[in-house]
């Protein structure tokens, strides 16, 4: 089984980081993983995205034109990538910044106001972790406790942020389980 996840949003939203955390957690679960950032000219235009491939077999092509899942942190990301998602995948939309929906009936669409939830928790900068919590819980690709450990490791040098990030992760999970 192979999962491909596209994380997309504005530069500065922590897109690359949550892709890395998911890849890290999947690696700890014994899966093969590859993480690819956008480093081309598009990142200068303000859009950041990364692709994570998780597989139980060695990964062939690490570049995926049609991902299984999409985490869209803003409107342009949804517009750009929603069409390409494979049927049956999860599309997570940051409804704080994106009023639109994918229009797809063959996917598991989930709209979560991750930016607003993060503000309520005390920092807008935790929005990416809210999104990760919601996506990880909904997709079930990787054991949630491994995600939790990978977040802690990511913030190992910013230890005072860990309690906030744990709350953000749980807030995301709660939203995913609510809908």
């Amino acid at each position, binding site marked *: 089984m192979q999962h491909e996840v596209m994380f997309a949003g504005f530069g500065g939203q922590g897109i690359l980081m949550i892709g890395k955390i998911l890849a890290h957690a999947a690696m700890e679960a014994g899966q093969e*993983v590859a993480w690819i950032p956008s480093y081309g000219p598009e990142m200068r235009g303000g859009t950041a995205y990364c692709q994570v491939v998780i597989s139980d077999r060695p990964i*062939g092509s690490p570049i995926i034109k049609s991902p299984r899942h999409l985490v869209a942190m803003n409107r342009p990301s949804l517009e750009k990538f929603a069409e390409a998602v494979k049927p049956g995948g999860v599309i997570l939309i940051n409804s704080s910044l994106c009023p639109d929906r994918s229009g797809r009936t063959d996917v598991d669409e989930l709209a979560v106001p991750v930016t607003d939830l993060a503000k309520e928790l005390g920092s807008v900068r935790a929005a990416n972790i809210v999104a990760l919590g919601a996506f990880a819980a909904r997709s079930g690709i990787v054991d949630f406790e491994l995600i939790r450990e990978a977040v802690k490791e990511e913030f190992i040098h910013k230890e005072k942020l860990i309690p906030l990030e744990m709350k953000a992760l749980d807030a995301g999970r709660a939203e995913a389980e609510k809908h």
Partner: protein
Amino acid sequence: MGKKVLMKGNEAIGEAAIRAGCLNYFAYPITPQSEVAEYLAKRMPEVGGVFVQGESEVAVGYMLFGASGAGARVFTTSSSPGISLMSEAISYIAGAQCPAVFVNIIRGGPGLGGILPSQGDYFQSVKGGGHGDYRMLVMAPASVQEAVEMMMVAFPLAEKYRNPVMILGDGLIGQMMEPVEFPDQLSTEPSNKDDWAANGMEYRRSDKRNLVKSLYLDPEQLNNHNLLLKSKYERMKQEEIRYEAYNTDSDYISLIVSYGTMSRVCKTAIDNLKEEGIEVGMIRPQTLFPFPETAIHDAAGKPSCKSVMSIEMSMGQMVEDVERCVKGNRPVGWYGKCGGDVPTPEEIMHVIKEGI
């Protein structure tokens, strides 16, 4: 081997150099390999090593020459236009028989080109780039783990042959994160440096006087020097060829030759075609020089095999070597792209089906 860690190719290459006992790194930043310098700027001082950012790639090339001539293990990383600027020094280093490791994380060319993955520097790496009759030993990794393993053998090979070794990756190998395990640390001293290092007699374990030079004005001497260099390149062909054969136990109807990132896409295409009942084999050169000539010749000659395809992120460079190996026994085709848009498995499947 330690624990698996998730690392970007560029950072893993930097760490691998340290594990390979190389504590001298000179470089100039260029996308898509700048993270190597970023990583080693922090890491080298921690291990007592040196990172100097040169004023240009031309200078960096000669910093490598100087350090190597003094017996130090040394390497640099750059991307295509930077390697062009270093090519003069590479020729001098090869001529003077000094060991050094160059990493090229290729971007699209020619000229400034673009910053996305490409394999357009095949000719530059394998056939020359600098002037004169020299060769580099060129290795092409297809994963972050393989980049690390190739770095670990690059330094001992450079010293064994007293010749530049190149690790030829593409933008994706540099930018991608994958799990890696690092092999154990090598010693920091080249074992044979008394043979070439001009580092002062008091540091020498022999009385042999070393001279680092590439100037031979006497025609007979220069010819003999070139014959000596040639004998080293012939020895590489005997001892250093590395390749991976994929699905070659099957009765494949077509053979792909592909390397680096491109070969991974081909593997997915081969797996998908197998499910459709079409068998395709692949030879993936891990060394581009020396090239796996016999392996490709023999694999192409399998009775079931009707055609050979060179699939590369360049406009038909490696295909010339593939044709040379197949020797007209089978038709040889080419497919590739080099704008930075890596061909998809679906494209490769389409190309193979068209050809059979």
